[in-house]
């Protein structure tokens, strides 16, 4: 553990926390412009959060501690992941727990908490959203694990810093078939996990088509602000994870302090680019029918399996 590493990890958390609502705002703005609307501006999610935070905290009758604890736990899991994943520096003090499987598990913990909160309200839509979220998650997890195996075979470790460090030192490994197939599989899974099109529509107001939004229908005020903030950070973390695994340029692998600001700028640029590409792609997509979602996720599972096979047999 070094001072530079600790500082880098803290800076990562600050950047993800402060930048993720801006990322969401940027993606909405890109979408609005492509659809011919003026858009609300990049900072609108922050203004929404400020508005929600000023409101009186209120919870529905009959909800228990699960409902109240879920926003805090969800936010906590995302913040932990933001500190652990090597976005800007690989020498984070939490390096020993920066295991890709552990990161996937922590993110899944957040999802499960929110699903439980959706069930706790006892409304029809909360239950429906929770059931759908669990369906999608159970299909997503095998793909994540297989892609992790495909990426870790090359390095011989599931430690994120080790994987990222190896890719920084050997950039050509990115265009190997195993890495390409795993990238496509993980990209599909990221869209499903972050609740973007074509799996879930983040801007829907029709309860029957909601997944994520249906679970948080009953939240209001500061709780809703926390959930919205955590969802934005989750999107930022997932895109950042994708960027760190497949385009790790600019990440500091040594203990130097001077390179960290530059690494943070590069990280923000990478995630913003991914976000813009995703938002522009979403304009051309319609939401998949729920019964077609398993098809998409079976496809990504197959790609992940082929990635594992390719990394064993070609490598």
């Amino acid at each position, binding site marked *: 553990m070094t001072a530079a590493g600790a500082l880098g990890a803290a800076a990562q958390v600050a950047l993800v926390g402060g930048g993720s609502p801006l990322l969401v705002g940027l993606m909405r703005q890109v979408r609005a412009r492509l659809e011919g609307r003026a858009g609300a501006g990049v900072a609108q999610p922050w203004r929404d959060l400020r508005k929600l935070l000023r409101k009186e905290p209120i919870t529905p009758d009959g909800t228990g501690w699960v409902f109240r604890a879920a926003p805090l736990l969800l936010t906590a899991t995302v913040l932990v992941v933001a500190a652990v994943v090597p976005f800007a520096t690989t020498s984070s003090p939490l390096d020993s727990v920066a295991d890709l499987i552990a990161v996937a598990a922590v993110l899944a913990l957040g999802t499960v908490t929110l699903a439980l909160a959706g069930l706790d309200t006892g409304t029809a839509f909360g239950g429906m959203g929770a059931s759908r979220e669990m369906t999608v998650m159970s299909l997503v997890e095998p793909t994540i694990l297989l892609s992790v195996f495909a990426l870790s075979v090359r390095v011989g470790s599931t430690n994120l810093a080790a994987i990222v460090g190896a890719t920084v030192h050997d950039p*050509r490994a990115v*265009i*190997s*078939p*195993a890495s*390409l*197939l795993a990238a*496509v599989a993980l990209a599909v899974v990221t869209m499903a996990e972050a609740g973007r099109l074509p799996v879930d529509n983040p801007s829907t107001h029709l309860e029957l088509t909601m997944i994520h939004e249906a679970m948080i229908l009953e939240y209001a005020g500061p709780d809703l602000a926390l959930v919205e903030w955590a969802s934005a950070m989750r999107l930022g973390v997932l895109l950042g994870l994708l960027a760190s695994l497949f385009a790790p340029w600019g990440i500091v692998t040594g203990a130097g302090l001077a390179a960290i600001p530059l690494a943070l700028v590069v990280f923000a640029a990478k995630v913003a680019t991914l976000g813009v590409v995703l938002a522009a792609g979403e304009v051309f997509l319609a939401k998949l029918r729920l019964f077609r979602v*398993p*098809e998409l996720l*079976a*496809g990504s*599972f*197959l*790609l992940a*399996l*082929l990635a594992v*096979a*390719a990394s064993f*047999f*070609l490598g």
Partner: protein
Amino acid sequence: MSETTYVQLLDLACGVFLLAAVLILWRRQLSAIVRLFTIQATALAGLVAVLAVHQHDTELGAVAVGILLLRAVLLPLLVRRALEASGEARETQPLVNVTASLLAAAVLALLAYAVTQPVVRLSPSPATHAVPVAVTVVLLGFFVLVTRRRALSQLAGFLLLDNGITAAAFLTTAGVPVVVELGVSFDVLLAVLVLQVLTSRMRAVFGSTDLDELRELHD
């Protein structure tokens, strides 16, 4: 070309080849399938070109150009024309639904890796290590042939099968003679033309190209 660059390019071509095959199984839009065939044939030609440069073999280079012209330009053109004539945009009712076919493809890929291990052990080299990819594509081609109903999807399965066989031939041998490759290529061209005629005849008689309609013999 250095050894590592050679291996990387070979693996990359094989990866694109395999990815295109999986996407062909995935997509229902017939026009998208034709586009994916162009990509797959280009990857195949790239694979042969990489082998040609590595072995300093001009004859193999000529074969690569031939493959590119025939499979990436001529065959997609013919299939696209048949597609426009048939007026059917998508495979509506495969016998096995797409989710199940993708999972079946995962099993087929593992099967291909298992059965090609003796071949790889015979002479371990970067090229033979990629043979499982070619065999996977062959098996996927068989699978498409068996489970799809439209004549044009069957054509896609046939082309997939043939691309896989060609890739396996180039990966296992030190180079296929031009005469052999020419013979095989014209065979494929002929098969595509025959299937194109069959499609248009079927459409004239039944109004669709569903192969399940072909049930009665005729004299």
